[in-house]
């Protein structure tokens, strides 16, 4: 029963089935969604930790890989994130109380001067679905904002996002400022104008072209 429910929850995340009333995806119409299945799992006595690792994470990993391979697109990823969010509403109290543990903390924000946030949001959703606590600082973030968040969350990794050539340059100063206070903090960067060479030049620890790349980096370095 438990394994069957975890498998179903994984499928809900993979295909973006939020709850029973949701008409999407058509092939799961009328079936329970992430909302109901998470409740059932908790009622069965399955721990939040196991629901995260056995249900949500395998589902979100498939989403990340399919997105990377252009088999699904942004709207479907957002539906998956919505399904995951439905489940997380049930699980968050357990993470807050410490009854269940996430893999680590990831602080993310769009850098100073830039207001674009779709890419940043996709990364945040995917990382959260992969078992991390995510602190989203929003857009137009100064170095001080990242540093304050790291102070509150020792050991957290940081993600910097930028879409413009005029704002990617701010990544360099922000990375330097972060490393000056917290030399051990891992900084990963992403966004249309940046690449591996730029990452190396500014002293960041990682560049990922897609959200799953960030998850893979965090899994290698933190988890």
């Amino acid at each position, binding site marked *: 029963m438990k394994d069957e429910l975890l498998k179903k929850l994984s499928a809900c995340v993979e295909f973006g089935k939020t709850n029973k009333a949701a*008409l*999407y*995806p*058509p092939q799961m119409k009328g079936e329970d969604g992430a909302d109901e299945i998470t409740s059932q799992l908790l009622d069965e006595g399955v721990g939040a930790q196991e629901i995260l690792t056995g249900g949500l994470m395998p589902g979100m990993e498939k989403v990340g890989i399919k997105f990377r391979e252009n088999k*699904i*697109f*942004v*709207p*479907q990823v*957002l*539906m998956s*994130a*919505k399904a995951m969010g439905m489940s997380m509403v049930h699980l968050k109290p357990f993470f807050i109380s410490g009854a269940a543990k996430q893999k680590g903390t990831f602080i993310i924000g769009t850098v*100073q*001067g*830039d*207001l*674009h*946030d*779709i890419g940043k*949001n996709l990364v945040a959703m995917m990382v959260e679905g992969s078992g991390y606590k995510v602190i989203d600082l929003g857009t137009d973030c100064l170095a001080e904002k990242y540093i304050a968040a790291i102070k509150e969350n020792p050991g957290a990794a940081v993600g910097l996002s930028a879409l*413009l*050539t*005029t*704002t990617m340059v*701010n990544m360099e100063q922000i990375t330097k400022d972060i490393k000056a206070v917290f030399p051990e903090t891992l900084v990963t960067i992403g966004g*249309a104008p940046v690449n591996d060479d730029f990452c190396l030049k500014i002293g960041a620890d990682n560049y990922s*072209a897609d959200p799953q790349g960030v998850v893979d980096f965090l899994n290698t370095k933190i988890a």
Partner: protein
Amino acid sequence: MKVEFTYQFEELAIDMDRLRKGLGYSEEPIPELFIDYLKKVKEDCRELTDICGAFRICEELQFADNKRSFFADGAEFKVGRTIAQKLRKADKMAFFVCTAGKTISEKASSLLKGEDPVFGYVYDIMGSAIAEAVADEVQHHIEQQMLPLGAKITNRYSPGYCHWNVSDQHKLFSLFDENPCGVSLTESALMNPVKSVSGVIGIGQDVEFQDYQCSLCAMKDCVYRSDE
């Protein structure tokens, strides 16, 4: 000469292919749920009252010897070799600013951050398509205006593309009165409302309009890129 127009959503030829590509479904069928979202967004767009396009034609023009920039009304536009080459036979330049408006930009942003990110994303993509459709209208208007004078137009080129540094937006905006069509610039050259486009179109008897332009651009991962 400066001209500013407002548009109704119904007047615009929204590029459905662009919408499909923006959503990601350039070849695959769009899932039914997202088609419903699109229908709803289109319906809502009929209420928009802040869709606008503005242009200004500059006749005082000089190309730099470096073949990478030109001067218009005293401002140097460092467009890069690719765009400079496309514009070099122009004897006038039309600079434009077009926007889908504050309403749709804010609606998209608010939905993306909150209650329905999927719906917000569809609004976001529609906002981009509207801004481009306004630019199409402005381009067409300029073309029609130049025809009787025996002049043709080039394709339109925007800061941030084809190696043209986006920071030149500040010079482009300086050619207009403050906030053309209600569009302002941040220090980092980001347009606000975000669903806006700006750029330049060359005008002259010997310039050429080319159907296919993606090969000029370095943005290999652009969602709108055509592989022709």
